[in-house]
């Protein structure tokens, strides 16, 4: 009797899960497996569905490709610089926002604006800020000149200048979401803890470090993980800033490399693209897992 009921429930559950499983399977799991297989098929041609052999050649090629190495370097720089920076600044701003009362909503709205703005439109604004043209050196260069420095070509100039613009842009774009999450996390901390700490004579800084931070640490951790994943997948922002010929600009990212291998001017190599995609997947997986491992020791509840 009980067993029959249980089996019925099982069947029903599968029925309800079916639409989701179907879509996930067709559009996520199947392509993932497919890409994994392609990455081992040497010289796969998607038109004729043929390949020469099976092996690790694709990986070897990608790992020896200087464009790929450049893309990996760019991506890692972007991740390492922007994730801690944006999270830190967002935390500062959220703490500031939570401690003021008047105009708080206004500031919250202003800080949220970049989130709802189109990537390409923002890219255009950054062009105006940074790009050197025949008529103007851009707003930022005007500022630098004002302080007595020489103009820097941020868009077509030296590598560090371009990296700076990219990081600046990324930090600015991801900030609103982080501020939103952190302000809500801060407001969810029960004020009674602060009262208790005040009675015990806790200094403001210690209160922040010993009470606020641990209390919102799960949210910070969530932001760091999603930040890592987001930064590893950077592509459209780079295109918005530096155009589509990213290899020439030395500003390609891993996702950009995958795209170029598939559809770029020198593209048409699904095998190489698959191998690069699998490598990216492996990197993100490793970092996320190690993040989870670290956090399970550091995050308290």
């Amino acid at each position: 009797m009980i067993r029959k009921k249980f089996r019925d429930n099982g069947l029903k559950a599968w029925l309800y899960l079916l639409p989701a499983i179907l879509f996930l399977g067709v559009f996520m799991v199947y392509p993932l497996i497919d890409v994994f297989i392609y990455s081992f098929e040497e010289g796969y041609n998607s038109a004729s569905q043929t390949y020469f052999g099976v092996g690790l050649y694709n990986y070897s090629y990608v790992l020896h490709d200087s464009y790929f190495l450049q893309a990996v370097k760019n991506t890692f720089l972007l991740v390492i610089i922007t994730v801690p920076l944006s999270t830190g600044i967002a935390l500062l701003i959220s703490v500031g926002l939570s401690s003021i009362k008047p105009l708080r909503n206004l500031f919250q709205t202003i800080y949220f604006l970049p989130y709802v703005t189109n990537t390409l439109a923002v890219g255009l604004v950054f062009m105006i800020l940074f790009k050197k043209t025949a008529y103007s050196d851009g707003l930022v260069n005007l500022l630098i000149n004002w302080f007595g420095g020489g103009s820097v070509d941020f868009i077509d100039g030296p590598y560090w200048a371009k990296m700076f613009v990219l990081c600046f842009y990324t930090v600015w774009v991801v900030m609103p979401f982080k501020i939103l999450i952190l302000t809500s996390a801060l407001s969810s901390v029960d004020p009674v803890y602060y009262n208790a700490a005040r009675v015990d004579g806790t200094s403001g800084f210690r209160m922040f470090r010993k009470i606020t931070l641990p209390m919102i640490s799960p949210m910070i951790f969530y932001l760091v993980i999603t930040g890592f994943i987001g930064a590893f997948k950077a592509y459209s922002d780079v295109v918005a800033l530096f155009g589509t010929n990213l290899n020439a600009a030395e500003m390609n990212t891993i996702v950009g490399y995958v795209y170029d291998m598939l559809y770029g001017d020198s593209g048409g190599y699904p095998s190489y693209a698959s191998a690069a995609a699998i490598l990216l997947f492996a990197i993100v997986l490793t970092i996320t897992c190690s993040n989870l491992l670290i956090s399970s020791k550091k995050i308290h509840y």
Partner: protein
Amino acid sequence: MEVILQNLTKKFPGRDRKRREDVIAVNDFTFEIPDGELIGLLGPSGCGKSTTLNLISGLIKPTSGRIFFGEDDVTDLPPENRGIGLVFQNYALYPHLTVRQNILFPLENLKGKDRLTKSQMEERALQAAGLVQIEELMERKPKELSGGQQQRVAIARALVKRPRVLLLDEPLSNLDARLRLQTREEIRRIQKETGITTIFVTHDQEEAMSISDRIVVMRDGVVQQIGKPQEVYDNPVNLFVAKFLGTPPINVFDGRVRGGKLYIGEEAVLDVADVPDQSVYAAVRPEGFLPAGDGPLSCALTGVEVMGRDISVVSKNKASLNPAVRAIIGTENRVDRGAIVRFALKPGKVFLFRTDSEQRIPFEVK
């Protein structure tokens, strides 16, 4: 440390858009708490007792009036400089810290010459933990503790820096009935052992009566009566205090005094020779009824509850302002299960109050 409150008043700005008058949470509170006493602030919710506690703690500032700890005027001092230990209603233990870290927290805040060495801190923490008997729980997190254990940790954390005054906000309200009994004894014991002046807030009169050296009954921000629990119980100054103290609650009747006799309904129940003729509220404690076949007060019996230790007689009377008249009598009495039960009244358990101001009308008990 004695705590002196002088004309303490706290007004909060009215939030209602239509009525912008201030809300007076505490109104002109003057009281001198002797050193080493356990004081219960008692009243229904919204009576200003928690506000009073927060004023003493320094978490909120009074609108007017002064607070002294001994000779020191602490009115303008922030909470951290007052030397108080505060136990919050929900304990406010830091959930991410262990019991040990929670207790150490106030000590780690000390700076300069007050700063203790690591081993001194450990020693003090262990001492505080020993006082509330939680030594074996030191490495646990708060969520791994029962409510009663959390309460003890909170008290240990409040005591560890050796405060001059200990403040407890509804210390027992989050505990179940059994634990409540046990914990209130515990609070009493800790307070006696440390000799620290302690003020606690409660809405439970039984709790306040059972452990306080003195209780303060408050209503709408105004102190009604201050005194030893038994004194206040035996001698309430007004109807509110009489009704607030005691379980089961006092029985209130519409009464009349005519020619030196108290009438409830048409029955003259008590001699009150020195009271002028007037309408009164006559309040009788449940233990003030004596079942007597020829007793002057007759009530329609609705039920008899045998409690073991005593008997609770539930009856009805037309003049009663309570839904039922409840009398507690000894088990040696027999109540005939008739339709009418008759009582004589113990004069010391009967209080008369004015119908307008609800103030007590004294009369001589013969």
